[in-house]
């Protein structure tokens, strides 16, 4: 009996505490920037696609829902020919983002992906690619890589010496 009265009393008191529920969807939730939601592919500061088609995200994905094919442009810059995420399988674990060496793939604070038709949850590169650097501005992999992909020549990187003159025997 006492317990019942106590419960009613506590419930009554809650009328006067601050509300945590919100009027979703009219009112949107505030999410942390590191919240792991919908996956995007970002671009580097120079507007090029960041993804270099290394397949590491696909390998890291525990549900194997990322498939891509790497290809190269005429300068030898590698990028994905297609990039597909099956969001009906994705568990938003963020492993792909952690595996990505180029900050290309990022999970963003957006979870509003409900679909009536499961097939619509298959996202292709056009659906994934955004025109932004996302959470990690400033990084361009091809500026620090050793290859010449049309972004910088051999020895032009910040941490690089000019190419070796192989005809010289001087130390």
């Amino acid at each position, binding site marked *: 009996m006492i317990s019942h009265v106590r419960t009613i009393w506590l419930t009554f008191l809650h009328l006067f505490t601050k509300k945590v529920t919100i009027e979703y969807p009219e009112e949107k939730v505030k999410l942390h920037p590191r919240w792991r939601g919908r996956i995007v592919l970002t671009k580097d500061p120079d507007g090029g696609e960041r993804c*270099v*088609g*290394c*397949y*590491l995200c*696909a*390998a890291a*994905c525990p*549900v*194997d*829902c*990322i*498939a*891509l*094919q*790497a*290809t*190269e442009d005429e300068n030898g810059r*590698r990028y994905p020919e297609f990039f*597909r*995420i*099956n969001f*009906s*399988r994705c568990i938003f674990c963020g492993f792909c983002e952690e595996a990505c*060496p*180029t900050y290309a793939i990022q999970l963003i604070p957006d979870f509003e992906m409900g679909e009536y038709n*499961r*097939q619509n*949850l*298959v996202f*292709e590169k056009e659906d994934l690619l955004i025109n932004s650097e996302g959470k990690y501005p400033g990084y361009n*992999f091809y500026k*620090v*890589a*050793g*290859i*010449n*992909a049309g972004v910088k020549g*051999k*020895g032009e*990187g910040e*941490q*690089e*010496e*000019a*190419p*070796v*003159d*192989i*005809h*010289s*025997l001087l*130390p």
Partner: protein
Amino acid sequence: MPTIYIDNKPYEVKAGKNLLEACLAQGVDIPYFCWHPSLGSVGACRQCAVKLFKDENDTQGRLVMSCLEGVRDGLRLSVNDKMAKAFREQIIEWLMTNHPHDCPVCDEGGSCHLQDMTVMTGHDYRHYDFKKRTYRNQYLGPLIHHEMNRCIQCYRCVRYYKDYAGGEDLNVFAANNKVYFGREKDGVLESPFSGNLAEVCPTGVFTDKTLKEHYTRKWDLTMAPSVCQHCSVGCNTIAGERYGELRVILNRYNGEVNGYFLCDRGRFGYEFVNDENRVKQPVIRNRTSEAVTEPELTTYLQTAMYNSKLIGIGSPRAAVETNFALQQLVGPGNFYKGISEDEAYLTNKVVRILETGTVHSASLKDIEQSDAVLILGEDIWNTAPMMALAVRQSVKKTAYSHAAEQSKLPIWHDAAIQEFVQEEKGFLANITVAGSPLDGIAAYTAYGAPDNLARLGFAIAHELNTSLPVVSNVDDDLINKAKSIAAVLLKAKKPVIVSGISCYSEGVIEAAFNIAASLNTAERKAAICYALPACNSMGLGMMNAPSFDHAVTRLQREQDMTVVIVENDLYRDISSSVLDTFFSKAANIIVLDSLHNRTTEKANVLIPAATFAEGDGTMVNYEGRAQRFFQVFMPANPFIRESWKWLKEMNLYKTQGSNGHNQPPEELLEKLESTSHQFEGISKVTPPHDFTIHGERIPREPHRYSGRTAMLANLNVSEPKPMQDNDSPLSFTMEGFKGIQPSIAIPFFWSPGWNSVQSVTKYQEEPGGHLRGGDPGVKLFHDRQGSEPSFFKGMPESFAERPEKWLVLPQYHVLGSGELSIYTKALEELTPSPSVSLSQQDANRLNVQNGDMLQVNADAKKYLLAVTINKNLCNGVVLVSAGLGEVEGMSWGSWVKVSRCE
């Protein structure tokens, strides 16, 4: 067997090895770079340091390079010693100071020895704050990509390319911290073995350029054990698929056959599988709609098989199963070999010789280990490339073992031995029609028309065995040559005689046998081998069936015949005049093939056949080793099936039987064994289709295969059921047996911590030795020691020129003469244009020079070909590029007219 103590634990190891090999053989991992089982040790990378102790009381010890330290009984070493570990970690760190930040875009990634070794040593943080050294890359041709920044200066590439494969255009340049591995200037790598650089280089400096076109990481490939389709050597390969396309061919180690290497034709010649020119749809011609559906085809074939008189034309590039299924379908009396009478006759000769077992049929390993090689009449560099590489190793190793005996240096001590050897070489007598690149390492070369080569062979045989007939009408020169060669051969312990059928001379084949059989004694184990034209020439040759010429006469005799041709472009081997009449006489022509070609054009019914990548089958290589290749992937196109499957279905239509659908391929082999005793044992070439290990099948996909739930999601978001393989113990998934697969079915080499090809060590009894469980393949020819050889007594007269006529022989090209490999764009680019070679004198006589056009009239056809003057060629003989461009099958070994084009 000496006992060594590794970290105080005793291990029995093989004497004569170095510590690194010994430890790896015991499963003790030591990181290394510059050492390679086929290249020996040079101590260039300093990565393999271990600590060595004087005795059990020695606590100090000293650091040594394990690859440079021989095994001794009672030797004590520590791999886990703190100082040794720190040293190895430091070495990697130094190697990494200039290493680029490239793994994501590096084709080596995921199968990179440098990655593996870095993880093994535990190095993870770069302390070096200064700038990185950079290099410019070179263009090395369409096969190999160069990315020099990734080099760790281990010297493996040049040691392989120059020392092992004999290439002259790759070297090390500059000095100290700037050494550069490449060519003197940009240009195509000349060696036809350059593809191995991609596997030998432990980093991503040299990578497969054809793979780059459709790059896939090792972990994403669906792989299966396969066998190269491009010559009679039958090198073992791993073929990898992704997204329904064949992506790469890698070496599959086989201690008896190809070891660690492949030739470029084999490694890069895979793209025909993905070609646009594939036959994709069954076609019945002369109908309003030619492309037919499965039921339409079935109805057609049911009547066609039941009502018609059938003859079958087999193929030297079709699997044993396919040829046998065709023979079963048409009946033994109606099956023809699909090769010309000459080729069939010569192949048959070779089969008869090897079947007797009087002389051991040499594997590539036997050739490598022989101490004297005689090549008689075959340009193996171009017809059986890996055989040429094996001969080169024999020449090298013989000199090495001499040096090792004299100097007491261990044979693996590559740098020291090389220094000792200097220019000394083992014995190779290269006797060919017009020379080959092997001449450079031959102690003895001779050129001549096939008949003269045969006579030289018979003269040698006579020197070895005086009861054999003397060569008539000889000059002293020939006798002296024969004497000097015979003298060396007699000193050898394991001589090998290499020959082949490409100079279309019976005498050459016989002489080679006479020499080998004369050399074969209780103390001296001689061996013999003959290179043949195609991957399954031997398997076809071993079948009891007449040649194609008999099929031609049969059609002239009999009307209303239905001809079934399987996987054979007859125009490559038979002249078009013969073929055109043949086809006009046939009432109905049914062709099964994988690519459109001139023969498929003649077909009334064309049925798509699987290539090696889409089907299972067995090939018999030149030494009589039956080898199984496994289906790599199931084609999306349901019409693409193995020819033997189609033929078996057709057989059911014919007999109106209803049992026997979907039988696994081994049942065909069992049936073959029971009908033809020469194939005895062939069904052991594969584990049965229901073979499992602890109830698990062997997965074709590595455990980190990615994208399973997305790769087909664009078509349907619900994943399809994994495909079922009812023909082999391999599965199309990543689940199943994890561990060292049985040697007979290794889809890929992988072992924990060893992602790169170097993991093959874990599959071997010892590094560079046999695979655990035995090297795969079943030898169909058995040695019968002590059986009396039946020598050949007849021999040809010496070659005489004819006025206005030339003896025409084929000139093969290692990259170019392959029927299927030529579909690879990169190889097409490297293919020479067809030409006709003739001697300087003949050129003068015809008043032509290099590059001029000559007209060759062969088999009622005219060819216009550019002249190449070959100074080794004798007068009266011309060589015509075989299988290149417009050049069709010719009656090789016949006399043709050659004239200057006005």
